């Protein structure tokens, strides 16, 4: 015979009711907070994982904010560089106009004045500032204007980077030295400089490299011995090449071609120098000054215009290259933003699966718990009423 003590009946009944109440309270807390994980012990692995996901999400926040800043900075640069491009195109048109022999001094003077104004405009553009008052094109020395009035670059060559994703850093600035100042002269390998005191009418073009392996950087001097023969000397006076000339023709030596047209006079010279770099401002300034320089004959002026036009084209190319690069980076910003937002959705839903209460499941579980609480209470009440003493009256 198994005995049950009376206090045990009460204690067991009470314990059952208390346990059910604790369950119901826990479910109620989950419903009220919307969270499944109330304490790390509810799901230790999930608690750690959810922290890791939160940390990843905070990193995505950081990257997104960085991308926003980077994008606005890059867009600002891009719009300034577009203005620069417009301005340089206008300069190019003006220079082509000025190159026409039909133009009189007065007309060239007007063009020169406009070119001088364009130099100012370009300088102002290069010293653009962003909303914080930082100079866009001073590298990281962003408190200093990029260029002085005499075209000296005062910034540095550093770029500012932002983190766009784990392990990916994106440059959000480009130094002005690269965009405006360090632009190669001539065709990028060499430039032809014609002696202003030549008496003939020979005009020297841009030239081209035909074989890089033969090219030796040096200053070569090309001299017309007679109007139809020439010799090429290197900087130490050694004879490099010689030949006959007939307009127009290419003078070829050391793997390069120099196109010459017109009629040179005996003793006329021009030099082939390795490319150096020249700022866009200097190029335009040279044009503005050259157009109204009374000491220059029309051939010398044409040669000057040809030379500086080549430099202008280099500047245009550089502008296009930088803008293409900025465009590529803007695309990267877009694609990483999309990537990050995709990742954010992944991470958030993963975290929600771990942390958040499933309402349907929690509510039905709580219903069940309430039912069993009710059952425990009812059965206890029933048991309590059953005592022999009740009958012994």
């Amino acid at each position, binding site marked *: 015979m*198994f*005995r*049950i*003590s*009376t*206090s*045990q009946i009460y204690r067991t009944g009470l*314990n059952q009711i208390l346990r059910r109440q604790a369950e119901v309270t826990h479910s109620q807390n989950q419903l009220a*907070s919307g*969270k499944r*994980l*109330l*304490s*790390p*012990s*509810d*799901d*230790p*692995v999930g*608690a*750690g*994982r959810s*922290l*890791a996901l*939160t*940390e990843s999400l*905070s*990193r995505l*926040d*950081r*990257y997104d*904010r*960085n991308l926003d*800043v*980077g994008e606005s900075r890059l867009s600002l640069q891009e719009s300034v560089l577009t203005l620069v491009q417009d301005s340089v195109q206008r300069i190019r048109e003006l220079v082509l106009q000025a190159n026409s022999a039909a133009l009189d001094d007065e007309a060239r003077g007007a063009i020169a004045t406009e070119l001088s104004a364009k130099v100012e405009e370009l300088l102002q553009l290069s010293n653009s500032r962003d909303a*914080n008052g*930082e100079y866009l094109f*001073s*590298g*990281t*020395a*962003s*408190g*200093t204007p990029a260029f002085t009035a005499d075209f000296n670059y005062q910034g*540095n*060559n*550093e770029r*500012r*980077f*932002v*983190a766009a994703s*784990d392990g990916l*850093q994106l440059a*959000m*600035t480009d130094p002005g030295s690269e965009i405006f100042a*360090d632009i190669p002269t001539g065709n990028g390998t060499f430039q032809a400089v014609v002696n202003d005191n030549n008496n003939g009418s020979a005009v020297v073009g841009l030239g081209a490299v035909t074989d890089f392996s033969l090219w030796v950087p040096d200053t070569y001097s090309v001299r017309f011995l007679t109007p139809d023969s020439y010799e090429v000397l290197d900087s130490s006076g050694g004879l490099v090449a010689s030949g006959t000339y007939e307009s127009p023709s290419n003078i070829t030596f050391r793997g390069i071609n120099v196109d010459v047209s017109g009629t040179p006079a005996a003793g006329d010279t021009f030099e082939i120098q390795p490319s150096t770099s020249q700022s866009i401002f200097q190029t335009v300034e040279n044009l503005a000054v050259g157009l109204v320089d009374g000491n220059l004959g029309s051939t010398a002026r044409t040669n000057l215009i040809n030379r500086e036009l080549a430099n202008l084209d280099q500047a245009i190319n550089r502008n296009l290259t930088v803008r293409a690069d900025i465009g590529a980076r803007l695309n990267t910003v877009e694609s990483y933003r999309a990537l990050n937002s995709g990742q954010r959705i992944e991470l958030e839903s993963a975290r929600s699966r771990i942390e958040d209460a499933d309402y349907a499941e929690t509510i039905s579980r709580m219903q069940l718990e309430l039912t069993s609480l009710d059952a425990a209470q009812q059965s206890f009440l029933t048991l309590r009423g059953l*005592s*022999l*003493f009740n009958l*012994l009256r």
Partner: protein
Amino acid sequence: MSGLQGIGLNALLTFQRALATTGHNIANVNTPGYHRQSVLLGSQAGTFIGVGYLGNGVNINEVRRSYDAFLEGQLAGAISGFHQQQALAQLSDGLGSLFGENGIDVYGPVNDLFTTLGDMAADPTSLPARNSVLADAGGMADRFRLMQSRLDSTRVGLNQRLQQLAGEANDLLSNIAQLNRRIMDVAGGPAPNDLLDQRESLVNRLAEITDITTLETDDGALNVSLANGLNLVLGSQAETLSTRRNEFDPARLELVIGPENGIQTEISAQISGGELGGLLQFRDQVLTPTQNEIGRIALGIAMSINDQHRQGMDLNGNLGGNLFNIGTADVLHSRNNTGNGQIDVIVEDIGQLTPDDFELTFDGANWSMTNLTNGQAVPLTPDGPDLVGGGMRIQISSLPDAGDRFQIRPTRSAAADINVAFSDPALLAAASALVAATDDSNQGSGLVGPVTITDPLDPQLRDPVDIVFDSPTTFRINGGPPQSYVAGSPIAVNGWEITIDGAPATGDSFSVTASTAADQGNGANALALADLQLNGLLDGGQTSVSAGYQNVVARLGSLGSSFATAAGIQGGLLSDLELRRDAASGVNLDEEAVLLQQYQQSYQAAAQIIEAASNTFQTLLAATRR
């Protein structure tokens, strides 16, 4: 005739006592530790009347309590086990919830700080961005301090509970000793059931506090001892249980037995059960490791940010200082030390530091250090007057006596000791202090990477340096003697180093120059600071601080849930034992109701015996009166 009357009277008295016992049972239905009592009846020996023995009625042989020695013996152990696990589970759950949904979110502010550091990298000249970094750095330090103070107050609460329990245990011990005396006084007679019940219930209450073993001696005394045999109650003598400050740490209480002013024996290590066992286990296995690890994480973040910050340059063109002030490690002197040794400990290498406590001893000539968690020796290397080991630098400013001991806790209070070192946003070193450049006219494919500062204190740190390659394998620094170059290995000069990616060609040159205040738009150092969020900073670069924090939370969670499971199992075991004990010994009111009826009826019947005897006597009287 008188025989029948005697039998009736005897039966009347016997059933009266049986009724009284039933009443006693009913009255004690709610008394804890009460064992149901019952009267054992026996018939009186008969009187020989020649033809046989004539019965003499009923007799009470014994008032016996229903007692199952086997079940009772298991009960104390089950009670200790349950209360130990219950204390562990409740305390761990409480600690765990500090890190839970409604707890103190330590890691949110850490993430915020890294986010604003990233903002500063993108916009290094913006004062609002810089102020946000300072505010978030302060917010992070505050949050760590808050967490630390909550952990400290858990420790204070734990000490109070230890004292309270020691006091309760003392009362129980002296009460048990008193009961022993009263039971020994009546030894040899019938069992003093209610005294035994009282004593057992005191022993069970004591088992809730600590694990004990008991031994009943022949003289009726119950001797109570700790699991290792140390006596708590011997006969009518009770020991005094109290708390004493730890040898090293006054904030850590140890349990001792022995008279208040006499020799006390430390017994903390011997207590493994009961609520005391649970409290001690919680302190050593849950609270201390958690607090140490939180300290290590706080230290890890602050030290790595400081290291990186010192590599940068602030808006005034100066090298960055420390962003966070960091406290020194706790060094606790043993109260038994005889010397006046002065020792300071600084954490030097957070990557090597483990979240443990250490004991440092001096034998008169040599120092040795032991990791108190795993008991292993930590090698110490002398470095000038200091000792270096385990990521710590131990500075000894005056030697202690031989045999003196110190406890070192590098991370215990670290989280509370961190605060932001300055409030001027211009002092935030967002820019890199040195800028490396690859010459534009280089022919080779070598590209110089960022400059890493190895010694911010080098006097020539910010001097300009040109590195020119004489050949692909030799280079000169500022025109000095040629040095050989191994591809990919760093070139170290003036407290910094650089690495060249790709192959430099003959005549190529690279330069390193100091940034100046004009370089205000440089955010390279802020970028490096923000990227610390991902880097492994702890355990020799294996663990990022966030992974370390996740480990703390996951560990707390799994300890909490396993303790809760264990408490559930122990609770089940205990209630099963109690169920069986109650089945054997508890009072059932229905049963007592039946017995009440039975004895009442028997009493009435016994009264009838007396009436029958009386009637018989009256009949005789009437017969003789005629």
